[in-house]
Structure formats: C-alpha cells, structure tokens
C-alpha cells in the first residue's frame, strides 16, 4: 500500500512537472507579452525597466528555473493584471467564493442524485423511474449556461422571485450571513448535470446489485426490504460509484466559467480567461498547477477508496 501510494505520488509529481514545462514553454512561445503597449507607447527605457523588474528580460529557461524554484517554496509570484496582490492571495480570495458555490453544488447534486437514483432503482419501471431517467437525460444534455439562462428567464424575469445575478448582495439575504437568495439559481444551474450523472450511476449500480445472487439469498432468508437495501445493496452499489463519480468533485470545486459569467459571481472563473488574454504568466501557471494537482489527488483518492471498499481489488501491480 505505502509503495503503491509512493508510486502514485511520484507519477503525480511527474505530471505536474510536465504540465509546468508545457505551459511555460507554450506561454512564452506565443507572440505577445504581458506588457505590450496599446495606443500609448512607453519609452524604451521604461519598458526595459518593467521587463527587468519581472525578470522577463532573461532567457526562458532561466525564467523557468527561477519560477519553479520559487514555486517549490510555495511562492507563485505576482499577477500582472493585479500587481498589488500576490497570486496566492488572489486565488485564495476568489477561489473561496467559487469553492462555496462548488461545495453547495456537490451537496445538492450528490444528495438529491443519490436519493433519486435509489428510488428509481427500487421502483424500477414506475413513473418515478421514468421521471428520474428523463430528468437525468435532460441534465446530461443541456449545457449549464443554457439551463442558467432559462432559470433566469423564469425565476428572475418571469416570476420575479429570485435575483438574476450577483453574489451576497446586501438586499438578497434571506437569513443574514447564513443563506442568500443569490445562491439558489447558480447552484441549481450548476448542479443539474452532476445530479443527473449521480442519479444515473446510482440507478444503474443499484439495479445491478438488486439483481445479484446475494440479494436473492437475503430475500430467501426473509430479511426485510429495508435491511436488504441498506445492508447489502447500498454497500455494493457504492463501489463502482466511487470511481465513476469521484472525479466530478474537483471539476465542481474549481467552478464553472459559464455559471460565474452568467450570474456575475466574482469567483475564480473569469481569471481562466483574463489570464490568458493578458499573458499573465504567473497566474496561468498557478491555475494550471491548481487544476492538475486537484485532478491528480482525486484520482489517487478514488483509487485508494476503491480498494478500501472492495477487498477484492488489490492496488499495485499494473498502474492502470
């Protein structure tokens, strides 16, 4: 186990290293730099000064080594688009908001998805089953910005019940400091897809479990339906769901550019676009690192969980 984990962590480091090299070289290979003048030309001396200040006058490999040396010490530099902050503080501040949306989405999607999927599997063929299947079909096919737009049309402009955007606006608190009306539509729009996926996977793996021999044995023993469901079915159905659904989570907590754009949420999302537009090298690198790292960790965690839940699975051997 320890050996396996070590191997996985080394391969994660390798991936992070590869990501850093590719991103860094791509960034610097493309035309245009962060301090290119627009209409007003800077005096050459001033420009040279700025470039020197940020170390952009040095050869790329030197810049890379310098950046990585700092990054290893958790110093990710200063974002060019907001020089009064550090990359770390800017990400912390904006990611906090994105993270809130993400966590609420995870809770809603997994909570409702699990319940709906379980009911659908338990009452297979009933109208509930059909409704859940249809809902998950809609959820997996509609892009979230489309859903967001419809929600805004109906609930904000049509029924005038909820705000069309903004985040923690002073007038939108239902319970001050605890729950804001601003949260409802974005989280709903964002949660529909993962909720559909969770419901669909839950239903499928529960149906598999219901049809298995050990459930028949349990029935023959005369166990109550509820005991069968909680003791036998849920436990076995959880195994395939961990690997299938775990990787949704890093996606959700890093947020959606679209949701944040549509609902005017001041989160991390916009920096994915502005950073590349402005050639904000430190910010691009940090965002790439953040996402690659979250993905890598999630995959390791789900694989380990898989082995913990299912004693038949042995970790190690081939790394697949």
């Amino acid at each position, binding site marked *: 186990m320890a050996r396996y984990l070590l191997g996985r962590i080394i391969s994660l480091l390798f991936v992070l290293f590869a990501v850093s090299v590719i991103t860094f070289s791509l960034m610097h290979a493309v035309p245009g730099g962060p301090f290119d003048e627009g209409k007003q030309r800077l005096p050459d001396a001033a420009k040279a000064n700025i470039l020197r200040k940020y170390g952009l006058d040095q050869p790329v490999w030197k810049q890379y080594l310098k950046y990585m040396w700092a990054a290893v010490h958790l110093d990710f530099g200063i974002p060019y688009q907001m020089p009064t902050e550090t990359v770390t503080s800017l990400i912390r501040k904006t990611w906090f908001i994105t993270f809130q949306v993400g966590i609420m989405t995870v809770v809603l999607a997994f909570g409702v998805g699990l319940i709906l999927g379980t009911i659908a599997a338990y009452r297979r063929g009933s109208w509930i089953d059909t409704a859940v299947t249809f809902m998950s*079909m809609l959820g997996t096919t509609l892009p979230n910005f489309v859903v967001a737009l419809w929600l805004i*049309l109906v609930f904000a402009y049509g029924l005038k019940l909820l705000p069309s955007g903004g985040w923690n606006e002073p007038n939108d608190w239902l319970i001050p400091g605890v729950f804001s009306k601003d949260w409802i539509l974005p989280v709903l729009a964002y949660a529909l897809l993962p909720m559909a996926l969770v419901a669909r996977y839950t239903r499928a793996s529960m149906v598999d479990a219901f049809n298995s021999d050990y459930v028949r044995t349990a029935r023959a023993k005369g166990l109550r339906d509820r005991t069968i469901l909680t003791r036998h079915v849920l436990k076995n159905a959880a195994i395939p769901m961990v690997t299938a659904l775990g990787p949704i989570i890093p996606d959700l907590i890093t947020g959606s550019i679209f949701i944040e754009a549509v609902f005017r949420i001041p989160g991390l999302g916009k920096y994915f676009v502005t950073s590349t537009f402005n050639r904000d090298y430190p910010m691009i690198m940090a965002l790439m690192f953040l*996402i690659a790292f979250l993905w890598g960790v999630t995959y390791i965690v789900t694989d380990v969980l898989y082995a913990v839940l299912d004693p038949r699975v042995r970790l190690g051997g081939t790394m697949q």
Partner: protein
Amino acid sequence: MRRFSHNRLAMFGLLLVLFFLFLAIFADFLAPYRYDVADFSKVLQFPFIDPSHPLGNDEVGRDFLSRLIFGARTSLMVGLTVQVIAFGVGIPLGAYAGYRGGAFDFAVMRVVDVMTAFPALLFAIFLITVWGGGLEKVILVLGLTSWIGATRLARAQFLTLREKEFVGAARAIGATENRVIFRHILPNAMTPLIVAVSFGIPAAIFAEAALSFLGIGVNDPLPSWGKMVGVSGSYIRVYWHIGLFPTIMIALTMLGFSFLGDGLRDALDPKLTVE
C-alpha cells in the same frame, strides 16, 4: 437493427439529428435571408410580429430564423470534423499502442496522462487566445484535445482483442501487422468506438457553443448558437427571444445526439448499460 428501430427514444433522436443535418446541408435554400444581411430598421424586433421575419431580428437587425438555420451548419461542422480528427488520430494511435505494447505503449500512455491532467477547456481557451478565434481554429483546438479519449478506448479494445484466437490465427497464416490490426481486430473493436463517436459529437458541439459563448469561438458574422446565447445575456431582460431560441436549438441537438447514442449503445451492445 430491429432493437434500434423499436427504441422510440432512439428513433426520435435519429429524426432530430437528421433534421439538423438537413438544416445544415440545405441552409442556403431553407433560410429566407443570408446570415449576414442586416436590416437596421428592425434591430431586436420581436418574433411573430413581422411575417417577413417570423422569429424576429437579432441585435444588429439580422433575420433570426436564418441565423438559427445557418447556426446548425456551424454546430454540426464542428461536431463532425472534431470527431473525424479525434478518431483519425486516436484509433491508429490506440491500436498500435494496445497491439504492440512495450515502449511505444508506454510513451503514448504517458502523453495521454499528461494531456488528461490539462483541463481541456482551459487548454482550448489558452490556444484560442494565442491563435485567434474562427471556425477552423475552433475545430483544430478542439481536435487537439479530443483524441485522448479515443486513444484510450481504442487501446483498451486492442489490449483485450489481441489475445483472441482469431488474431493468433491471422498471425499464423502470415498476415502483416497492419493487416492484423486494421482488417482483423478493428472491425471487432468498432462497436464501442461508434458509440463513443455518437457521444463525442454533442460534446464537441457543446465545446464550440461554450467557446463562442465566451466570445472566443466562431467569428462574426458566422452564426453560432453558443455565441447567440452569449450575446443575448445583455439584452435578455427585454428581448427574450434572442436568448430563448438558440438555447432551444442547442438543447434539441444535444438531446437528439444523446438519444441516438443511447439507442446505438443499447442496440449494438446490450451488455453496456452504463457508460
């Protein structure tokens, strides 16, 4: 085949897909106007008022119905070409990796690992801001990230199939490696690949809509449903039609392809119930 035609949802999906294909191919004849003709006296005109513009006009006065019809062409073009690139690259790469194994396999899989770690959308945004937008660039950028899944899938297929007796038999009678791969194994590996294509098309359409929504996809005046949704954000409060219609188009296309994909999967391989 019968299993497919008896599946009502799948037939509905097929109809939708055929409908959009029809729109895309014959857009020039079907659309009442060209997509770039603007009538500045009718900017943001509401739908169902003026019989010459049944679905109203957009923010610079172009006929909305025509833009929607030409939008089908953009979407399907992106969806289909990206999948051609994805599987054109992915199938041979995955096939050789799975069949040969060894160093080639190792190298391919490490590249795949690294590419997987890159967030696809971020990567696409990054490349587009560098290369500039436009239909060809969007297709190229999406193609660059889309071969990963195809490679993985093809490799997995070849890994299991290469151990089968018919492969040994083909090799025993002296078939060349390419012949074994493309004549003997590939036809047997097609089922999951076809299903993957039918899910890949809506994914690419979605990605194009997403990029255009952000304003870095297809360039004006070429219409794209995603771009129309993106633009509508600032007008939607009053001029609801320029937001509603394109979202309906996107939704129907995605639904059509997913129903079709689900149906194909059920018909071709009853064992595969969950993707």
